């Protein structure tokens, strides 16, 4: 058996240094709920494991003076659920993160891991995209920011440069009359992988949608930002015609595959159904805010 080196640096600089030095043979460890499973199955065989949970910034939740919220990439689902205000501002993002796995998995699983694992079916990703979240990335070349939808590159792949680590997600300030929601279709009631996942974020004034974003998961090689669906919703009162137009945009955006988790026809149909249902929940929440 080959030995694995485990390091748990306490600063981001050390982590980036160790990550870059290992030149491809290292893996970042957040909650490990993807990584350890993949190691057990022999899918990945890292020479070095860099545990980022000891880095304060990676597990912090910060409310910025301008109303934005920044969450560390390695914050586990339960910690976010216990935060007094995060779930009020972003109920859709929170429900997406809390859908991951079970109680046990929630104690570990992080949004950073969910995004960087690169699965098109990751539950928190469509909700983060709908929220308009931006990630802060740090690497050997310094810090940069990128929108969440720019991170995934394909199944199991990201657009992070070698040695780059996702540090935090920053969610924008929430105007009055905003609400978000996330729904996924799984055959079981839990412990399953999304066949389709849909995140919708809306801002409404006087019953009219003034801003909207739609994220769609598990229907293409990467999680999608569906701008045409958002356009169909903006300016509408979420009447049937607008919802049907947005659903049609979601269906048109799908580039799914036939696999053991769903057929092409089924995934395309479900994308439209979920858009309508998710938008309805987001709108109800927007009305309440």
């Amino acid at each position, binding site marked *: 058996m080959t030995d694995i080196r485990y390091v748990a640096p306490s600063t981001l600089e050390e982590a980036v240094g160790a990550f870059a030095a290992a030149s491809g043979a290292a893996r970042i460890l957040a909650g490990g709920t993807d990584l350890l499973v993949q190691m057990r199955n022999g899918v990945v065989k890292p020479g070095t494991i860099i545990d980022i949970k000891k880095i304060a910034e990676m597990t912090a939740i910060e409310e910025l003076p301008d109303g934005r919220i920044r969450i560390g990439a390695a914050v586990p689902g339960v910690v976010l659920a216990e935060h007094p205000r995060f779930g009020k501002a972003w109920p859709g993002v929170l429900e997406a993160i809390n859908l991951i796995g079970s109680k046990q998995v929630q104690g570990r699983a992080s949004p950073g891991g969910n995004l960087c694992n690169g699965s098109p079916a990751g539950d928190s990703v469509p909700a983060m995209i709908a929220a308009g979240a931006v990630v802060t990335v740090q690497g050997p070349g310094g810090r940069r920011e990128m929108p969440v939808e720019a991170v995934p590159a394909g199944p199991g792949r990201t657009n992070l440069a070698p040695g780059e680590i996702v540090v935090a997600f920053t969610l924008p300030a929430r105007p009055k009359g905003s609400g978000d929601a996330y729904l996924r279709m799984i055959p079981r009631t839990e412990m399953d992988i999304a066949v389709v996942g849909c995140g919708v974020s809306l801002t409404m004034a006087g019953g009219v949608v003034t801003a909207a974003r739609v994220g769609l998961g598990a229907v293409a090689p990467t999680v999608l930002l569906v701008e045409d669906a958002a356009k169909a919703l903006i300016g509408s009162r979420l009447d049937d015609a607008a919802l049907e137009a947005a659903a049609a945009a979601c269906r048109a955006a799908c580039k799914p595959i036939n696999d053991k988790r769903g057929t092409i026809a*089924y995934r395309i149909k479900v994308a439209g159904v979920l858009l309508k249902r998710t938008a309805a929940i987001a709108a109800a929440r927007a009305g309440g805010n």
Partner: protein
Amino acid sequence: MNDMTNKWIGARTIRPDGADKVTGRAQYSADTTMPGMIWGKLLRSPHAHARIRSIDTSKAEALPGVKAVVTQKDIVEFALDKSVMLGIQDMRWMCRNVMAREKALFHGHPIAAVAAISEEVAAHACSLIEVDYEVLPHVIEIEDAIKPDAPILHEWNQFEGKPSNIAGTMVLKAGDIEKGFAEADIVVERTFTTRPVHQGYIEPHACTVSYAADGRVTIWSSSQGQFMVRAMTSLLTGIPQSNIRAIPAEIGGGFGAKTIIYLEPVAVMLSKKSGRPVKMVMTREEVQRATGPAPGSLSTVKIGAKKDGTIVAAQGTFYLQAGGLPGSPLRGPVGCSFAAYAIPNVLSVGYDVVSNRSKVAAYRAPGAPHGAFAAECVIDEIAQALGLDPLDMRLKNSAKAGDKAIYGPTFGAVTFKETIEAIKHHPHYRAPLDKAPRPGVKRGRGVASGFWYNAGGESSVQVNITEDGNVVVTTGHPDVGGSRASIANVVAELIGVDHARVNVMIGDTQTIGFSNLTGGSRVTFASAMVATAATEKVIGQLKERAAKIWGIEAEAVKWEDGMALPAGDNAGKFPPLSLKELAAKANEMGGPIGNQTQLNTTGADPGYATHCVDVEVDVDLGIVRVLRYTAAQDVGRALHPGYVEGQIQGGVVQGIGWALSEEYLYDAKGRVDNASFLDYRMPVCSDVPMIEPIMIEIPNPKHPQGVRGVGEAPIVPPLAAIANAVHDALGKRFYALPMSPPRVSARMDEAN
């Protein structure tokens, strides 16, 4: 000695294995280790169908750390032209299932095995074994395997004079089927398919084996029968049974599939060759690829009835998937589908179809759910067409005492009607159901019934009184569904002592007499029968001892509440002698007190079940969820009601998975594409509602406590009950399982 005033029989006593299981102390198959132990791994076929031209193991043998390599040469060969049976298993197929011989018959078929100092080295060594395969076209589904131009798995197998994948048939008949249909006012004929489903036990197959220098073998493994492990290992290795001690570990579920072995003979040969104890543990992926499952099926059922609902003719044609080697459970659908009904004209035919998938293993009421799915859906359709309540239609046609069963015997009391009545009068069946509670949501209710033979068979027990006056019972059956708790209840009741003073153990093959498999819903029936006989003999001994002490005749002593008493005033006046007092005097009064009883038990009566289910369908997504489930069954006598309820609920949950979500998916190369619990979708807790069991206790007159097997009947009705409920909700009948979301959704779109 059996009524509702019993203190222990029928009590929900604490299970004897409970504390060990919840604290993690229970020893399962994979928990045994030994000094010097090494690890065995199997090389499995990468092809679904291939001829094995040669196997070169030299590179693997040369790898440092490798201690032994085993191939089919090391396993006893049973020639193809002569059947050698062990129970219902043919050794010709078993020897080829544990290690491929002429051909690899499915992706994952064992080809060779390595034992090495670690699992990693063993796995690496497996990759160094060079196998020369002639890859052959493969066939997976029944429909394809029975086509005239299908790839043939076994060239020597002939059907109707030609090489064929049909490896066996079974026919049962009554009356004149054509005449029967001619008399019918309505005839409905439908074709149904079900997919193979895995038993889904939590514990993967595993064993630790030690072949000692003196040729004596010890096997630690979990199974549904340590005697089966010993006998099959003996047959496949040539080692006499007297030299094989099979020690049963706690079992993490079997549901029928652990009535055969996969690893033990291979591990024995690895241990023999290496001189070291060997442990083998399957991964979940191996379990899903190469063990179990229950067969898939293709069934056509045709039923003819009079206007009043009287069934006059029933015909069933059942194709079952055997997997790579023959042996699907034809007697399930052929014998059970119509058995609970009095039908004058029946023709029931089964075909055993081989194809390139893992060899099927028993799964709860083997084959019966497949047949019941078809038959009970057709009955529902006829009841609907005739405007009859589906339960009334079943009541009208129930078999009765004295009827000749399609599978041979004449029925004694038939308690099918009681299960139908129990559902008919249950609040569930009468509760109003809002069939369209919200837009896009539909609800429906369905019923179905089921039949299972149940069984008796060989069982051995020892009942010993300890020197301090307590009781140790040793049985020869692994406890899969609560047999220890049930036997403790029976023995405590008979002896009249506190339940906590009775300790029930499971003996190994060299310490207790032969006991047949824990399967066929037989173990509580059989072991309660032998335990009763043995305990009665022990009580006889206790009375004799008391008689000796008092100087009176043994007949003048009675046994009550754990004490010997003079039987009446004529017997004389003596203070009672307790079990403890008699045990203390045992040696002076004639020696140890105890008894071993071994019987081939008979008198098992069939099990009947009727179920009612409400489902809710998310029409746009095609998701079917079970809202409410009520299951009525004649359980004879519930020795331990908690376990009986658990059996009923467990059978229903497995049936729900079978109906709605479980299936094997294959890729174009004939490889299982979902060999994990993530993508092989068994229901999780939140997928199923509380399942309400109705235990109807009509004692079996041929059993001392009235026991009737309960473990299998409850998996028979759910498939049809759920399909009938979905039909009630959507107005569409589903003839193919599982009714998974993509299928239901596609079906809903068809109409639009």
